[in-house]
């Protein structure tokens, strides 16, 4: 389905007849400290958003869907994956809702609960980027582009830039690896553990679990 059709359907679908997932709003408010219920749909976020034209759901519609517990709508939209966290919306929001922070928490939830991302390429890039850190502790551009091209299936993406960048000395031949890779591995392991626990347990369980 084309994104404009999906968008039209999505907007029309913002009603209470859809299945609701109240846990999600609770999770978002608990983990971000943001009061999503404050949003009164003024649309200032969308007005300043540099990517709103490419999004099927506008940023404030994500908040509306959250208020209504319409999880499916949120995870079917490409908005989550197109937000680049430029922080314009939070700068201008009259209700002081930190929308980029909410977007982070929603992506986290989507990953833990295996919601398929509507923007496959964006996720392929993010995963490759993070894999690079996991393998070397740093981001190594050649590996990043190569890894992305294999993961996404766009094998020759960015190839036009490869030769000039090598000639200009912008691409280094070997990655500089962090020496204490055991520490980096530990960070990855514990970060995933905390993320999983946070997105799978309700407030009561989380409090029972105590501090970490």
């Amino acid at each position, binding site marked *: 389905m084309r994104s404009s059709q999906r968008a039209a359907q999505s907007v029309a679908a913002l009603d209470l007849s859809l299945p609701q997932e109240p846990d999600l709003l609770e999770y978002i408010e608990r983990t971000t400290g943001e009061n999503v219920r404050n949003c009164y749909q003024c649309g200032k976020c969308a007005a300043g958003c540099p990517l709103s034209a490419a999004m099927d759901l506008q940023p404030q519609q994500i908040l509306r869907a959250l208020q209504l517990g319409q999880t499916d709508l949120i995870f079917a939209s490409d908005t989550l994956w197109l937000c680049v966290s430029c*922080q*314009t919306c939070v700068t201008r929001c009259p209700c002081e809702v930190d929308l980029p922070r909410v977007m982070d928490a929603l992506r986290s939830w989507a990953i833990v609960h295996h919601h398929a991302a509507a923007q496959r390429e964006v996720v392929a890039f993010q995963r490759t980027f993070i894999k690079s850190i996991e393998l070397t502790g740093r981001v190594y551009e050649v590996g990043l582009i190569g890894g992305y091209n294999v993961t996404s299936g766009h094998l020759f993406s960015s190839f036009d830039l490869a030769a000039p960048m090598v000639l200009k000395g912008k691409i280094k031949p070997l990655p500089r690896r962090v020496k204490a890779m055991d520490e980096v591995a530990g960070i990855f392991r514990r970060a995933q553990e905390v*993320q999983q626990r946070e997105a799978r347990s309700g407030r009561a369980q989380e409090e029972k679990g105590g501090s970490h």
Partner: protein
Amino acid sequence: MNAANAYAYFPGCSLHGTACDYGQSTEQMCERLDIELLELEDWNCCGSSPAHMVNPWLALGLVGRNLRLAGQTGLDTVVLPCAACYARFKETQHALKDPETAARIEYVAGGAVPSDLKIEPLLGVLGKPEIRVKLHDYQQRSLDGLKLAPYYGCLLTRPSEVAQFDDPEDPQSLDELLKALGAEVVSWPGKVSCCGASLPISRPELVWRMSGQLLAWAAEAGADAIVTACPMCHSNLDTRQGQIRRAGLGDYHLPIFYFTQVVGYALGLDESQLGIGRHLTNAKGLLGRRRPVVTQAG
């Protein structure tokens, strides 16, 4: 080491890679200004945008380890040229204010994380009164006659509660710096607009439009070049001009400088010392075409 002008230095991955010209010009410029940079030992990536987008705890933990390394230098301030790294460091420090969150960050980071270090963008260091005096005393070439578009992008100033640097809608620090060196600063609508950030690999056509719009605005304002403090902005604006042209979205050939290159040039450094020849959109010769006026003796 003179502690007053010594900083713990976090270059970040870009400055060791595709933005090596930013790294090179940063080090050269700081040496001229007697600013000592002590690079963190065995630092790791800050996580940039992808880490917090996939798992905020991973992002906080990665910076947590770096803050620990910065604390081990014994210096009280860590300086970051990269706007994205700066934003991640400030975000982590902001999160450390909440004791429960701090305990979790330390758990993920694998040890104590100092919360009291000063975190400054390199652009902020150049705004300090004592550095301004040095800039004035050490300037060898005026930028008189150059029309520059100061470009801040997103992450240096936003969200202001976290970044605590300059104004989020109409910042002035880079404007003032360029003016102090004699350049004319153009008024243009793009100074805090997003370049497309981390989308150029996955959704290049969106970045061509966003960066193309910035190039169009700067050109309309009569700018000879755009000046930035962010490696990601530089990459999108400089590297992608050929693709923007081939996509029929405008033919600009507009040089994009890091502010460190412009300042370094005013301090008497050569283009080759500042990595100006490494840009994909030719920027060589522009700074030198202006009258090389000696304003002060070395």
